[in-house]
Protein backbone atom coordinates (compact mmCIF):
# COMPACT_ATOMS: atom_id res chain seq x y z
CA UNK A 1 0.00 0.00 0.00
CA UNK A 2 2.69 2.47 -0.93
CA UNK A 3 -0.08 4.47 -2.60
CA UNK A 4 -1.47 5.46 0.79
CA UNK A 5 1.12 8.20 0.88
CA UNK A 6 -0.01 9.36 -2.53
CA UNK A 7 -3.60 9.52 -1.33
CA UNK A 8 -2.39 11.47 1.68
CA UNK A 9 -0.45 13.85 -0.60
CA UNK A 10 -3.54 14.59 -2.66
CA UNK A 11 -5.68 15.03 0.43
CA UNK A 12 -3.07 17.32 2.00
CA UNK A 13 -3.01 19.47 -1.12
CA UNK A 14 -6.78 19.83 -1.10
CA UNK A 15 -6.84 20.62 2.59
CA UNK A 16 -4.14 23.28 2.29
CA UNK A 17 -5.83 24.87 -0.68
CA UNK A 18 -9.11 24.89 1.25
CA UNK A 19 -7.55 26.63 4.24
CA UNK A 20 -5.88 29.19 2.00
CA UNK A 21 -8.74 29.91 -0.34
CA UNK A 22 -10.87 31.95 2.00
CA UNK A 23 -13.50 32.96 -0.57
CA UNK A 24 -14.66 29.42 -1.12
CA UNK A 25 -15.16 28.76 2.57
CA UNK A 26 -16.86 32.05 3.27
CA UNK A 27 -19.37 31.81 0.44
CA UNK A 28 -20.35 28.30 1.36
CA UNK A 29 -21.13 29.30 4.94
CA UNK A 30 -22.93 32.52 4.05
CA UNK A 31 -25.52 30.95 1.79
CA UNK A 32 -26.94 28.44 4.33
CA UNK A 33 -27.18 31.20 6.88
CA UNK A 34 -29.06 33.29 4.37
CA UNK A 35 -31.47 30.44 3.74
CA UNK A 36 -31.92 29.87 7.41
CA UNK A 37 -32.74 33.53 7.92
CA UNK A 38 -34.67 34.47 4.84
CA UNK A 39 -36.57 31.26 4.52
CA UNK A 40 -36.63 30.05 8.08
CA UNK A 41 -37.41 33.32 9.74
CA UNK A 42 -39.46 34.77 6.93
CA UNK A 43 -41.64 31.80 6.18
CA UNK A 44 -41.39 30.59 9.76
CA UNK A 45 -43.25 33.67 10.93
CA UNK A 46 -46.44 32.32 9.39
CA UNK A 47 -45.79 28.59 8.97
CA UNK A 48 -45.27 25.76 11.40
CA UNK A 49 -44.97 22.13 10.37
CA UNK A 50 -46.29 19.37 12.63
CA UNK A 51 -46.21 21.82 15.45
CA UNK A 52 -42.55 22.61 14.93
CA UNK A 53 -41.27 26.06 14.13
CA UNK A 54 -40.37 26.17 10.43
CA UNK A 55 -36.87 27.46 10.98
CA UNK A 56 -36.19 24.44 13.14
CA UNK A 57 -37.91 22.12 10.69
CA UNK A 58 -35.69 23.11 7.79
CA UNK A 59 -32.46 23.18 9.80
CA UNK A 60 -31.51 19.55 8.98
CA UNK A 61 -32.38 20.37 5.36
CA UNK A 62 -30.06 23.36 5.41
CA UNK A 63 -27.29 21.21 6.84
CA UNK A 64 -27.88 18.73 4.02
CA UNK A 65 -27.85 21.57 1.52
CA UNK A 66 -24.53 22.91 2.81
CA UNK A 67 -23.01 19.47 2.56
CA UNK A 68 -24.41 18.87 -0.88
CA UNK A 69 -23.50 22.19 -2.47
CA UNK A 70 -20.02 22.29 -0.98
CA UNK A 71 -19.37 18.71 -2.03
CA UNK A 72 -20.66 18.91 -5.58
CA UNK A 73 -19.01 22.26 -6.29
CA UNK A 74 -15.80 20.87 -4.90
CA UNK A 75 -15.99 17.93 -7.29
CA UNK A 76 -16.59 20.14 -10.25
CA UNK A 77 -13.44 22.10 -9.46
CA UNK A 78 -11.74 19.23 -11.26
CA UNK A 79 -12.81 20.93 -14.47
CA UNK A 80 -10.69 23.89 -13.44
CA UNK A 81 -7.78 21.63 -12.53
CA UNK A 82 -7.99 20.16 -15.98
CA UNK A 83 -8.16 23.52 -17.73
CA UNK A 84 -4.80 24.18 -16.22
CA UNK A 85 -2.40 21.31 -16.41
CA UNK A 86 -2.47 20.77 -12.69
CA UNK A 87 -4.35 17.53 -12.80
CA UNK A 88 -1.99 16.10 -15.39
CA UNK A 89 0.82 16.33 -12.88
CA UNK A 90 -1.12 13.89 -10.73
CA UNK A 91 -2.23 11.77 -13.66
CA UNK A 92 1.31 11.05 -14.87
CA UNK A 93 2.45 10.13 -11.36
CA UNK A 94 2.71 6.44 -10.55
CA UNK A 95 -0.47 6.37 -8.51
CA UNK A 96 -3.62 4.68 -9.73
CA UNK A 97 -6.52 6.77 -10.94
CA UNK A 98 -8.76 5.15 -8.39
CA UNK A 99 -6.54 6.40 -5.61
CA UNK A 100 -6.37 9.87 -7.14
CA UNK A 101 -10.13 9.81 -6.88
CA UNK A 102 -10.02 8.61 -3.26
CA UNK A 103 -7.56 11.35 -2.28
CA UNK A 104 -9.65 14.01 -3.97
CA UNK A 105 -12.83 12.66 -2.45
CA UNK A 106 -11.39 12.69 1.06
CA UNK A 107 -10.28 16.27 0.48
CA UNK A 108 -13.83 17.27 -0.45
CA UNK A 109 -15.30 15.44 2.51
CA UNK A 110 -12.94 17.27 4.84
CA UNK A 111 -13.92 20.65 3.39
CA UNK A 112 -17.63 19.96 3.70
CA UNK A 113 -17.40 18.57 7.21
CA UNK A 114 -15.46 21.59 8.44
CA UNK A 115 -18.11 23.76 6.86
CA UNK A 116 -20.92 21.95 8.60
CA UNK A 117 -19.25 22.07 12.00
CA UNK A 118 -19.03 25.83 11.61
CA UNK A 119 -22.70 25.89 10.67
CA UNK A 120 -23.67 23.83 13.70
CA UNK A 121 -21.76 26.11 16.03
CA UNK A 122 -23.35 29.18 14.45
CA UNK A 123 -26.76 27.55 14.79
CA UNK A 124 -26.14 27.08 18.48
CA UNK A 125 -25.19 30.72 18.79
CA UNK A 126 -28.35 31.71 16.89
CA UNK A 127 -30.46 29.76 19.34
CA UNK A 128 -31.55 26.85 17.14
CA UNK A 129 -32.00 24.14 19.78
CA UNK A 130 -29.88 21.34 18.36
CA UNK A 131 -28.14 19.42 21.12
CA UNK A 132 -24.53 18.28 20.79
CA UNK A 133 -25.90 14.76 21.18
CA UNK A 134 -28.25 15.26 18.25
CA UNK A 135 -25.44 16.68 16.15
CA UNK A 136 -23.18 13.77 17.04
CA UNK A 137 -25.88 11.27 16.16
CA UNK A 138 -26.30 12.98 12.80
CA UNK A 139 -22.61 12.50 12.01
CA UNK A 140 -22.93 9.18 10.11
CA UNK A 141 -25.66 10.63 7.90
CA UNK A 142 -23.62 13.79 7.29
CA UNK A 143 -20.54 11.78 6.34
CA UNK A 144 -22.49 9.59 3.97
CA UNK A 145 -24.15 12.58 2.30
CA UNK A 146 -20.77 14.23 1.82
CA UNK A 147 -19.05 11.15 0.42
CA UNK A 148 -21.99 10.54 -1.89
CA UNK A 149 -22.21 14.12 -3.15
CA UNK A 150 -18.46 14.63 -3.50
CA UNK A 151 -18.36 11.49 -5.61
CA UNK A 152 -21.18 12.81 -7.79
CA UNK A 153 -19.34 16.12 -8.16
CA UNK A 154 -16.07 14.41 -9.06
CA UNK A 155 -17.93 12.22 -11.51
CA UNK A 156 -19.29 15.26 -13.32
CA UNK A 157 -15.93 16.97 -13.04
CA UNK A 158 -14.28 14.02 -14.76
CA UNK A 159 -16.95 13.61 -17.42
CA UNK A 160 -17.49 17.24 -18.39
CA UNK A 161 -14.82 19.50 -19.74
CA UNK A 162 -16.42 22.92 -19.71
CA UNK A 163 -17.85 25.27 -17.14
CA UNK A 164 -21.03 25.60 -19.16
CA UNK A 165 -21.95 22.06 -18.24
CA UNK A 166 -21.81 23.26 -14.67
CA UNK A 167 -25.07 25.13 -15.23
CA UNK A 168 -26.69 21.99 -16.55
CA UNK A 169 -25.67 20.02 -13.50
CA UNK A 170 -27.04 22.79 -11.30
CA UNK A 171 -30.40 22.76 -13.01
CA UNK A 172 -30.88 19.10 -13.65
CA UNK A 173 -29.12 17.54 -10.70
CA UNK A 174 -28.45 19.86 -7.81
CA UNK A 175 -31.73 21.71 -7.49
CA UNK A 176 -34.00 18.70 -8.06
CA UNK A 177 -32.01 16.62 -5.57
CA UNK A 178 -32.38 19.41 -3.07
CA UNK A 179 -36.03 20.30 -3.66
CA UNK A 180 -37.34 16.75 -3.62
CA UNK A 181 -35.39 15.61 -0.60
CA UNK A 182 -37.83 16.99 1.94
CA UNK A 183 -35.25 19.56 3.00
CA UNK A 184 -37.73 22.44 2.77
CA UNK A 185 -41.14 20.80 3.15
CA UNK A 186 -42.51 17.46 4.33
CA UNK A 187 -42.99 14.93 1.55
CA UNK A 188 -46.26 13.53 2.96
CA UNK A 189 -48.61 15.73 0.99
CA UNK A 190 -46.93 15.42 -2.39
CA UNK A 191 -48.92 13.79 -5.21
CA UNK A 192 -48.21 10.07 -5.39
CA UNK A 193 -45.98 10.06 -8.50
CA UNK A 194 -43.80 12.82 -7.09
CA UNK A 195 -43.63 11.18 -3.70
CA UNK A 196 -42.34 7.97 -5.28
CA UNK A 197 -39.68 9.95 -7.15
CA UNK A 198 -38.31 11.23 -3.88
CA UNK A 199 -37.34 7.69 -2.97
CA UNK A 200 -34.71 7.81 -5.71
CA UNK A 201 -33.10 10.86 -4.15
CA UNK A 202 -30.23 9.92 -1.82
CA UNK A 203 -30.63 13.23 -0.03
CA UNK A 204 -34.15 12.21 1.07
CA UNK A 205 -32.65 9.59 3.36
CA UNK A 206 -29.95 11.92 4.61
CA UNK A 207 -32.44 14.62 5.50
CA UNK A 208 -34.79 12.10 7.11
CA UNK A 209 -31.99 10.60 9.18
CA UNK A 210 -30.87 14.00 10.44
CA UNK A 211 -34.37 15.19 11.13
CA UNK A 212 -34.93 11.99 13.08
CA UNK A 213 -31.90 12.32 15.36
CA UNK A 214 -32.01 16.11 15.71
CA UNK A 215 -35.76 16.71 16.05
CA UNK A 216 -37.26 13.27 16.53
CA UNK A 217 -39.23 13.75 13.31
CA UNK A 218 -37.87 10.92 11.14
CA UNK A 219 -40.27 9.14 8.78
CA UNK A 220 -38.15 6.05 8.51
CA UNK A 221 -35.98 4.23 11.01
CA UNK A 222 -32.41 5.55 11.19
CA UNK A 223 -30.94 2.19 10.16
CA UNK A 224 -32.99 2.11 6.98
CA UNK A 225 -32.03 5.69 6.13
CA UNK A 226 -28.35 4.96 6.64
CA UNK A 227 -28.51 1.66 4.77
CA UNK A 228 -30.14 3.12 1.67
CA UNK A 229 -27.92 6.19 1.75
CA UNK A 230 -24.94 3.86 2.14
CA UNK A 231 -25.92 1.92 -0.97
CA UNK A 232 -26.33 5.16 -2.96
CA UNK A 233 -22.91 6.21 -1.71
CA UNK A 234 -21.21 3.01 -2.81
CA UNK A 235 -22.74 3.39 -6.26
CA UNK A 236 -21.56 7.00 -6.61
CA UNK A 237 -18.07 6.11 -5.38
CA UNK A 238 -17.92 3.45 -8.04
CA UNK A 239 -19.18 5.91 -10.67
CA UNK A 240 -16.64 8.52 -9.68
CA UNK A 241 -13.72 6.11 -9.53
CA UNK A 242 -14.54 4.66 -12.95
CA UNK A 243 -14.90 8.11 -14.43
CA UNK A 244 -11.42 8.93 -13.14
CA UNK A 245 -10.02 5.75 -14.61
CA UNK A 246 -11.39 6.63 -18.01
CA UNK A 247 -10.39 10.28 -17.82
CA UNK A 248 -7.60 11.35 -20.15
CA UNK A 249 -7.78 8.21 -22.24
CA UNK A 250 -9.70 9.91 -24.98
Amino acid at each position, binding site marked *: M*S*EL*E*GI*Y*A*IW*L*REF*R*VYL*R*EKERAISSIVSPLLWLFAFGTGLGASVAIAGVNYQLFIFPGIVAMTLMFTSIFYGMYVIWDRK*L*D*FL*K*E*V*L*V*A*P*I*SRRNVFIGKMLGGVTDAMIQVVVLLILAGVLGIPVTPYGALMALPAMLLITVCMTSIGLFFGAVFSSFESFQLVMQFVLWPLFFFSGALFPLDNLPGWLASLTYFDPLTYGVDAMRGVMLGMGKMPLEIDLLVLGIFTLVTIWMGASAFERM*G*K*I
Partner: protein
Amino acid sequence: MLAGNNAQMITTSHLTKRFDKLAAVDNLNLNIEEGEVFGLLGPNGAGKTTTINLLITLLKPTSGTATVNGIDVVKNPAQVRKNIGVVFQEPSVDDLLSGKENLEMHAMLYSMPGELRRKRVEEVLELVELTDRKDDWVKTYSGGMRRRLELARGLMHHPKVLFLDEPTLGLDPQTRQHIWKYIARLAKEENMTVVLTTHYMEEADLLCSRIGIMDRGKIVALGTPKKLKHEVGGDVVIIRQDGFDRSCLKGLKLVKKVKVEGDEVFLTVEHAHENLQRLLAAVGKVKSVEVREASLNDVFLKYTGRKYREEEEGAEGGWAERTMHAESQRD
Protein backbone atom coordinates in the same frame (compact mmCIF):
# COMPACT_ATOMS: atom_id res chain seq x y z
CA MET B 1 26.27 15.11 -29.68
CA LEU B 2 24.80 11.89 -30.81
CA ALA B 3 25.74 9.10 -28.44
CA GLY B 4 26.63 6.26 -30.75
CA ASN B 5 26.39 3.02 -28.82
CA ASN B 6 23.85 3.88 -26.19
CA ALA B 7 20.68 1.95 -25.50
CA GLN B 8 17.39 3.06 -27.00
CA MET B 9 15.52 5.04 -24.38
CA ILE B 10 12.44 5.65 -26.48
CA THR B 11 11.20 3.73 -29.46
CA THR B 12 7.99 4.10 -31.40
CA SER B 13 6.78 1.78 -34.08
CA HIS B 14 4.00 2.81 -36.46
CA LEU B 15 2.66 4.95 -33.63
CA THR B 16 -0.63 6.52 -34.68
CA LYS B 17 -3.20 8.62 -32.90
CA ARG B 18 -6.39 9.65 -34.62
CA PHE B 19 -8.95 12.14 -33.42
CA ASP B 20 -11.96 11.33 -35.55
CA LYS B 21 -10.52 11.36 -39.04
CA LEU B 22 -7.55 13.55 -38.34
CA ALA B 23 -4.32 11.67 -37.73
CA ALA B 24 -2.57 13.85 -35.14
CA VAL B 25 0.31 11.39 -35.05
CA ASP B 26 0.67 9.46 -38.26
CA ASN B 27 2.61 6.20 -38.38
CA LEU B 28 5.53 7.53 -36.40
CA ASN B 29 8.75 5.55 -36.18
CA LEU B 30 11.28 7.14 -33.91
CA ASN B 31 14.23 6.06 -31.80
CA ILE B 32 15.74 8.23 -29.11
CA GLU B 33 18.94 7.11 -27.44
CA GLU B 34 19.87 7.34 -23.83
CA GLY B 35 21.48 10.65 -22.94
CA GLU B 36 20.19 12.54 -25.95
CA VAL B 37 18.56 15.95 -25.83
CA PHE B 38 16.02 15.35 -28.53
CA GLY B 39 13.87 18.11 -29.95
CA LEU B 40 10.55 17.75 -31.68
CA LEU B 41 10.22 20.86 -33.76
CA GLY B 42 7.20 21.96 -35.66
CA PRO B 43 4.31 24.39 -35.87
CA ASN B 44 1.25 24.11 -33.70
CA GLY B 45 -0.94 21.27 -34.71
CA ALA B 46 2.02 19.30 -36.03
CA GLY B 47 1.41 16.56 -33.48
CA LYS B 48 4.26 17.25 -31.06
CA THR B 49 2.18 17.45 -27.91
CA THR B 50 0.09 14.46 -28.94
CA THR B 51 3.30 12.48 -29.42
CA ILE B 52 4.43 13.49 -25.94
CA ASN B 53 1.02 12.63 -24.46
CA LEU B 54 1.24 9.18 -25.99
CA LEU B 55 4.71 8.63 -24.55
CA ILE B 56 3.76 9.83 -21.07
CA THR B 57 0.67 7.58 -21.00
CA LEU B 58 -1.92 10.36 -20.96
CA LEU B 59 -3.27 9.18 -24.29
CA LYS B 60 -3.64 5.74 -25.75
CA PRO B 61 -2.48 5.22 -29.33
CA THR B 62 -5.03 4.28 -31.96
CA SER B 63 -2.49 1.84 -33.33
CA GLY B 64 1.21 1.12 -33.17
CA THR B 65 3.44 0.78 -30.15
CA ALA B 66 5.90 2.80 -28.11
CA THR B 67 8.33 2.00 -25.34
CA VAL B 68 10.07 4.16 -22.77
CA ASN B 69 13.15 2.65 -21.16
CA GLY B 70 12.09 -0.64 -22.71
CA ILE B 71 8.63 -0.56 -21.16
CA ASP B 72 5.51 -0.62 -23.29
CA VAL B 73 3.39 2.50 -22.76
CA VAL B 74 0.09 0.72 -23.37
CA LYS B 75 0.76 -2.55 -21.55
CA ASN B 76 2.44 -1.11 -18.51
CA PRO B 77 1.69 2.61 -18.12
CA ALA B 78 2.24 2.58 -14.34
CA GLN B 79 5.80 1.38 -14.80
CA VAL B 80 6.45 3.96 -17.52
CA ARG B 81 5.28 6.73 -15.20
CA LYS B 82 7.94 5.83 -12.66
CA ASN B 83 10.59 6.37 -15.29
CA ILE B 84 9.55 9.77 -16.56
CA GLY B 85 9.38 13.37 -15.46
CA VAL B 86 7.15 15.83 -17.28
CA VAL B 87 7.01 19.59 -17.59
CA PHE B 88 3.70 20.47 -19.20
CA GLN B 89 2.96 23.20 -21.65
CA GLU B 90 0.48 24.98 -19.38
CA PRO B 91 1.24 25.94 -15.80
CA SER B 92 0.83 22.99 -13.46
CA VAL B 93 2.21 24.07 -10.13
CA ASP B 94 -0.19 24.90 -7.38
CA ASP B 95 -0.59 28.63 -6.75
CA LEU B 96 -1.68 28.32 -3.16
CA LEU B 97 1.16 26.06 -2.12
CA SER B 98 4.73 27.14 -1.57
CA GLY B 99 7.46 25.99 -3.94
CA LYS B 100 8.68 23.53 -1.36
CA GLU B 101 5.20 22.15 -0.71
CA ASN B 102 4.71 21.56 -4.42
CA LEU B 103 7.92 19.57 -4.54
CA GLU B 104 7.05 17.62 -1.42
CA MET B 105 3.69 16.65 -2.80
CA HIS B 106 5.38 15.41 -5.92
CA ALA B 107 7.83 13.35 -3.88
CA MET B 108 4.99 11.74 -1.96
CA LEU B 109 3.16 10.88 -5.17
CA TYR B 110 6.31 9.09 -6.28
CA SER B 111 6.73 7.35 -2.91
CA MET B 112 10.13 8.83 -2.20
CA PRO B 113 11.27 7.96 1.32
CA GLY B 114 11.33 10.84 3.82
CA GLU B 115 15.07 11.21 4.18
CA LEU B 116 15.78 11.16 0.46
CA ARG B 117 12.82 13.45 -0.15
CA ARG B 118 14.10 16.23 2.11
CA LYS B 119 17.56 16.04 0.63
CA ARG B 120 16.32 16.01 -2.94
CA VAL B 121 13.94 18.94 -2.42
CA GLU B 122 16.85 21.09 -1.29
CA GLU B 123 19.01 19.78 -4.09
CA VAL B 124 16.65 20.63 -6.93
CA LEU B 125 15.72 23.97 -5.38
CA GLU B 126 19.42 24.77 -5.37
CA LEU B 127 19.75 23.67 -8.97
CA VAL B 128 17.10 26.10 -10.22
CA GLU B 129 18.14 28.79 -7.74
CA LEU B 130 14.88 29.02 -5.88
CA THR B 131 16.15 28.15 -2.41
CA ASP B 132 15.50 31.59 -0.96
CA ARG B 133 11.93 31.63 -2.27
CA LYS B 134 11.00 28.06 -1.36
CA ASP B 135 8.54 28.99 1.40
CA ASP B 136 6.67 31.63 -0.59
CA TRP B 137 3.41 30.78 -2.28
CA VAL B 138 3.81 30.09 -5.96
CA LYS B 139 1.21 32.81 -6.52
CA THR B 140 3.96 35.35 -5.85
CA TYR B 141 6.38 33.82 -8.37
CA SER B 142 7.13 35.28 -11.79
CA GLY B 143 6.47 33.26 -14.94
CA GLY B 144 10.11 32.30 -15.21
CA MET B 145 10.30 31.22 -11.58
CA ARG B 146 7.27 28.98 -12.01
CA ARG B 147 8.88 27.38 -15.00
CA ARG B 148 12.03 26.75 -13.01
CA LEU B 149 10.00 25.21 -10.21
CA GLU B 150 8.30 22.95 -12.72
CA LEU B 151 11.67 21.93 -14.08
CA ALA B 152 12.84 21.17 -10.56
CA ARG B 153 9.73 19.14 -9.91
CA GLY B 154 10.18 17.15 -13.09
CA LEU B 155 13.64 16.16 -11.88
CA MET B 156 12.71 15.33 -8.28
CA HIS B 157 12.41 11.58 -8.61
CA HIS B 158 15.48 11.05 -10.84
CA PRO B 159 13.51 10.14 -13.96
CA LYS B 160 15.22 8.37 -16.82
CA VAL B 161 13.57 10.68 -19.31
CA LEU B 162 12.47 14.25 -18.83
CA PHE B 163 9.76 15.49 -21.17
CA LEU B 164 9.49 19.22 -21.71
CA ASP B 165 6.48 20.37 -23.67
CA GLU B 166 7.20 23.86 -25.02
CA PRO B 167 9.35 24.77 -22.01
CA THR B 168 9.65 28.46 -22.84
CA LEU B 169 6.28 29.18 -24.38
CA GLY B 170 4.90 32.59 -23.45
CA LEU B 171 8.05 33.71 -21.65
CA ASP B 172 9.81 36.92 -22.52
CA PRO B 173 13.07 36.57 -24.49
CA GLN B 174 15.26 37.24 -21.49
CA THR B 175 13.57 34.67 -19.29
CA ARG B 176 13.65 32.24 -22.15
CA GLN B 177 17.41 32.43 -22.37
CA HIS B 178 17.56 31.93 -18.65
CA ILE B 179 15.48 28.76 -18.90
CA TRP B 180 17.67 27.52 -21.75
CA LYS B 181 20.66 27.85 -19.50
CA TYR B 182 18.97 25.67 -16.90
CA ILE B 183 17.88 23.00 -19.34
CA ALA B 184 21.35 22.75 -20.81
CA ARG B 185 22.77 22.44 -17.32
CA LEU B 186 20.22 19.85 -16.18
CA ALA B 187 20.82 17.66 -19.15
CA LYS B 188 24.51 17.66 -18.34
CA GLU B 189 24.51 17.47 -14.55
CA GLU B 190 21.63 15.06 -14.10
CA ASN B 191 22.71 13.00 -17.09
CA MET B 192 19.27 12.19 -18.31
CA THR B 193 17.55 11.84 -21.62
CA VAL B 194 15.57 14.95 -22.47
CA VAL B 195 12.77 15.13 -25.01
CA LEU B 196 11.45 18.59 -25.69
CA THR B 197 8.96 20.06 -28.08
CA THR B 198 9.27 23.55 -29.36
CA HIS B 199 8.28 25.76 -32.20
CA TYR B 200 11.20 28.06 -31.63
CA MET B 201 13.90 27.26 -34.17
CA GLU B 202 16.47 28.97 -32.04
CA GLU B 203 15.60 26.86 -29.03
CA ALA B 204 15.94 23.59 -30.89
CA ASP B 205 19.18 24.69 -32.49
CA LEU B 206 20.71 25.70 -29.19
CA LEU B 207 19.63 22.87 -26.90
CA CYS B 208 19.19 19.75 -28.93
CA SER B 209 21.72 17.15 -29.94
CA ARG B 210 19.21 15.85 -32.45
CA ILE B 211 16.05 17.25 -33.95
CA GLY B 212 13.03 15.72 -35.57
CA ILE B 213 11.04 18.17 -37.63
CA MET B 214 7.38 17.33 -37.40
CA ASP B 215 4.65 18.32 -39.76
CA ARG B 216 1.12 16.94 -39.93
CA GLY B 217 1.80 14.04 -37.63
CA LYS B 218 4.95 12.87 -39.38
CA ILE B 219 8.65 13.37 -38.90
CA VAL B 220 9.75 15.00 -42.13
CA ALA B 221 13.44 15.44 -41.30
CA LEU B 222 15.69 14.01 -38.64
CA GLY B 223 19.26 14.68 -37.62
CA THR B 224 21.66 16.93 -35.77
CA PRO B 225 20.98 20.64 -36.22
CA LYS B 226 24.21 20.88 -38.15
CA LYS B 227 23.33 18.07 -40.52
CA LEU B 228 19.84 19.42 -41.12
CA LYS B 229 21.15 22.85 -41.95
CA HIS B 230 23.74 21.34 -44.21
CA GLU B 231 21.02 19.47 -46.09
CA VAL B 232 19.50 22.74 -47.15
CA GLY B 233 22.53 23.07 -49.36
CA GLY B 234 24.17 26.16 -48.01
CA ASP B 235 23.62 29.74 -47.00
CA VAL B 236 21.24 32.13 -48.63
CA VAL B 237 22.40 35.30 -50.33
CA ILE B 238 19.73 37.84 -51.06
CA ILE B 239 20.51 40.34 -53.72
CA ARG B 240 18.43 43.29 -54.82
CA GLN B 241 19.01 44.17 -58.40
CA ASP B 242 16.91 45.51 -61.22
CA GLY B 243 16.74 43.33 -64.30
CA PHE B 244 18.56 40.35 -62.86
CA ASP B 245 19.65 37.94 -65.54
CA ARG B 246 20.07 34.29 -64.65
CA SER B 247 22.63 33.67 -67.35
CA CYS B 248 25.27 35.65 -65.51
CA LEU B 249 25.55 32.81 -63.02
CA LYS B 250 26.40 30.27 -65.67
CA GLY B 251 29.47 28.28 -64.76
CA LEU B 252 29.35 29.29 -61.11
CA LYS B 253 29.10 25.88 -59.47
CA LEU B 254 28.85 27.30 -55.96
CA VAL B 255 25.36 28.59 -56.63
CA LYS B 256 22.93 25.77 -55.91
CA LYS B 257 19.60 27.41 -56.39
CA VAL B 258 18.15 30.62 -57.71
CA LYS B 259 14.78 32.08 -56.91
CA VAL B 260 13.51 35.48 -58.04
CA GLU B 261 10.81 37.43 -56.24
CA GLY B 262 10.32 40.88 -57.74
CA ASP B 263 13.65 42.69 -57.59
CA GLU B 264 14.91 40.28 -54.95
CA VAL B 265 17.01 37.30 -55.87
CA PHE B 266 17.49 34.43 -53.44
CA LEU B 267 20.63 32.45 -54.11
CA THR B 268 21.54 29.31 -52.24
CA VAL B 269 25.30 29.38 -52.04
CA GLU B 270 27.93 27.12 -50.52
CA HIS B 271 30.07 28.93 -47.96
CA ALA B 272 28.60 32.27 -48.85
CA HIS B 273 30.94 34.31 -46.68
CA GLU B 274 34.04 33.09 -48.51
CA ASN B 275 32.49 33.16 -51.96
CA LEU B 276 30.70 36.48 -51.85
CA GLN B 277 33.37 38.31 -53.86
CA ARG B 278 33.20 35.87 -56.75
CA LEU B 279 29.45 35.88 -56.67
CA LEU B 280 29.13 39.64 -56.82
CA ALA B 281 31.73 39.86 -59.53
CA ALA B 282 29.54 37.64 -61.67
CA VAL B 283 26.27 39.39 -60.85
CA GLY B 284 27.51 42.92 -61.32
CA LYS B 285 26.12 46.07 -59.71
CA VAL B 286 23.53 45.45 -57.01
CA LYS B 287 21.35 47.71 -54.83
CA SER B 288 21.94 45.69 -51.71
CA VAL B 289 23.17 42.33 -50.58
CA GLU B 290 22.38 40.26 -47.53
CA VAL B 291 23.96 36.99 -46.41
CA ARG B 292 21.90 34.69 -44.26
CA GLU B 293 23.36 31.54 -42.82
CA ALA B 294 21.27 28.45 -43.24
CA SER B 295 18.79 28.16 -40.39
CA LEU B 296 16.34 25.53 -39.28
CA ASN B 297 13.75 27.81 -40.79
CA ASP B 298 15.19 27.01 -44.21
CA VAL B 299 15.16 23.34 -43.30
CA PHE B 300 11.53 23.56 -42.40
CA LEU B 301 10.77 25.38 -45.61
CA LYS B 302 12.61 22.77 -47.59
CA TYR B 303 10.77 19.83 -46.10
CA THR B 304 7.29 21.24 -45.85
CA GLY B 305 7.27 23.75 -48.65
CA ARG B 306 5.94 26.30 -46.22
CA LYS B 307 7.45 29.08 -44.26
CA TYR B 308 7.29 29.00 -40.58
CA ARG B 309 6.17 31.83 -38.38
CA GLU B 310 7.29 31.93 -34.83
CA GLU B 311 4.97 33.27 -32.23
CA GLU B 312 5.16 36.99 -31.66
CA GLU B 313 7.24 37.44 -28.58
CA GLY B 314 5.11 37.00 -25.52
CA ALA B 315 2.19 38.68 -27.21
CA GLU B 316 -0.61 36.52 -26.00
CA GLY B 317 1.07 34.12 -23.68
CA GLY B 318 0.67 30.38 -23.73
CA TRP B 319 -3.01 30.28 -24.36
CA ALA B 320 -2.98 32.08 -27.66
CA GLU B 321 -3.90 30.27 -30.79
CA ARG B 322 -0.74 30.09 -32.72
CA THR B 323 -1.05 29.88 -36.40
CA MET B 324 1.16 28.76 -39.12
CA HIS B 325 1.28 30.81 -42.20
CA ALA B 326 1.62 29.15 -45.49
CA GLU B 327 2.42 32.31 -47.35
CA SER B 328 5.90 33.58 -47.64
CA GLN B 329 6.87 36.00 -44.95
CA ARG B 330 9.99 38.09 -44.72
CA ASP B 331 12.03 37.85 -41.54
